């Protein structure tokens, strides 16, 4: 497996510290990141392939500094976003998958072979000539996965890949993610997706508050949510009591 290293990484947006002095070494096959909105989990994930650069500290992928060797890092790290719609560039499914390989300068036969394999891997062969923007949400997310993995990255980072999907499609995408050989870093609110992962990192206020196996980290995250809910209920009750 590849090694993703965060060395005392911090990042602020509009004066607010979103990631605060985080140090991690990720070498496991499947790693999950959970946390409330604004906890810094997506920013942390985006730093892995240089979509966001740290203000302080550095991120290394297999020894390559993401800030200085972004192009090499992006060849190793594929990224799947929440909204698959904004990842589709070409009109048809096949063309969109092939689009990733344009910069690889492969021979047409080899490129076709890789596109066919990627389509078959995600059950998209039958839809190859269909307009990509007319696919269902689940099919679009599978297309996004195929389009990224056709480039043979060693690491796949997925930022809430199932959030916009219905239960059936979310399960379908989760099944595909679970079967990947590539090293996987998944940011998700859907905790059941991370049950079988090797490691789960819980983020809160830009810091890592728990870093353990799912059996330990997920209950810790649930506790954290429950505590916040109780605090919110307390505020609501107080507001209702003061209402005239």
């Amino acid at each position: 497996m590849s090694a993703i290293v965060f060395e005392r990484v911090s990042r602020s947006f509009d004066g607010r510290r979103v990631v605060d002095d985080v140090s991690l070494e990720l070498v496991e096959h499947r790693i999950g990141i959970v946390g409330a909105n604004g906890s810094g989990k997506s920013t942390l994930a985006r730093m892995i392939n240089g979509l966001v650069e740290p203000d302080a500290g550095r991120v290394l992928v297999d020894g390559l500094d993401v800030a200085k060797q972004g192009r090499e890092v992006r060849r190793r790290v594929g990224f799947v976003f929440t909204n698959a719609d904004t990842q589709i560039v070409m009109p048809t499914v096949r063309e969109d998958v092939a689009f990733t390989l344009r910069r690889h300068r492969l021979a047409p036969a080899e490129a076709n072979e890789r596109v066919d394999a990627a389509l078959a891997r995600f059950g998209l062969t039958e839809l190859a000539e269909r307009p990509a923007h007319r696919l269902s949400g689940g099919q679009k997310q599978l297309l996004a996965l195929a389009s990224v993995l056709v480039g043979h990255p060693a690491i796949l980072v997925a930022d809430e890949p199932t959030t916009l999907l219905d239960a059936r499609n979310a399960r379908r995408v989760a099944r595909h993610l679970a079967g990947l050989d590539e090293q996987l870093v998944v940011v998700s609110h859907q905790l059941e997706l991370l049950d079988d992962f090797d490691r789960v990192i819980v983020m809160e206020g830009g810091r890592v508050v728990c870093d353990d196996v799912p059996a330990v980290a997920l209950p810790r995250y649930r506790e954290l949510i429950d505590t916040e809910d109780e605090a919110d209920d307390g505020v609501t009750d107080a507001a209702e009591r003061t209402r005239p």
Partner: protein
Amino acid sequence: MIGVFHPGGSLVHRAPALLKLGLLAALVTAIALQHSVLVLAGACLVVAGIVALARVPLRLLWRQLVPLLWLLAIAVPIQLLVAGWELAVTVALRLLLAVVLAGVYSLTTPVTETLDAAQTLLRPFRRWIDADRVGLALALAIRAIPLLGEIVAEVLDARRARGAEGSIRAVAVPVIVRALRTADHLGEALVARGLDD
């Protein structure tokens, strides 16, 4: 070109995109310069032959022609009144033949092949123009059409749900904001796919 391509194995499908583009340009120019109704009628037979050779479904070709029919419905009667039947028929045939030929091209050529052809054409100018970047810009322009369509449809639904049906501002502002945000996301996705260099 947005998802119009119809896969097939005909001679026209297999012909290189650059050759097809060249032939399309030459035929459309020849048709546009032709004034004789008789010669244009002959051109109809040639174009019918090309359609048969391409083996594309006629209903798909018809769909390409529908927007033109509206134009013809206005232009032909005006030409008939102002310039006589001969010019009216000439104009109608020129337009019809040009759109049918363009339709055959779109139906038999994937967008990626058109982009490759555009890049090949631009290669002699590579000192001044980045052909890859132009190809990417063309692809994004084509992709933006359905994406914007979806944004407008969603905003119109939201406006209707909130009872603000008469307000143009209630459409324009969210459409612009969402279009810009979508452009940001699309840019981010391109960077993530290694297309930032």
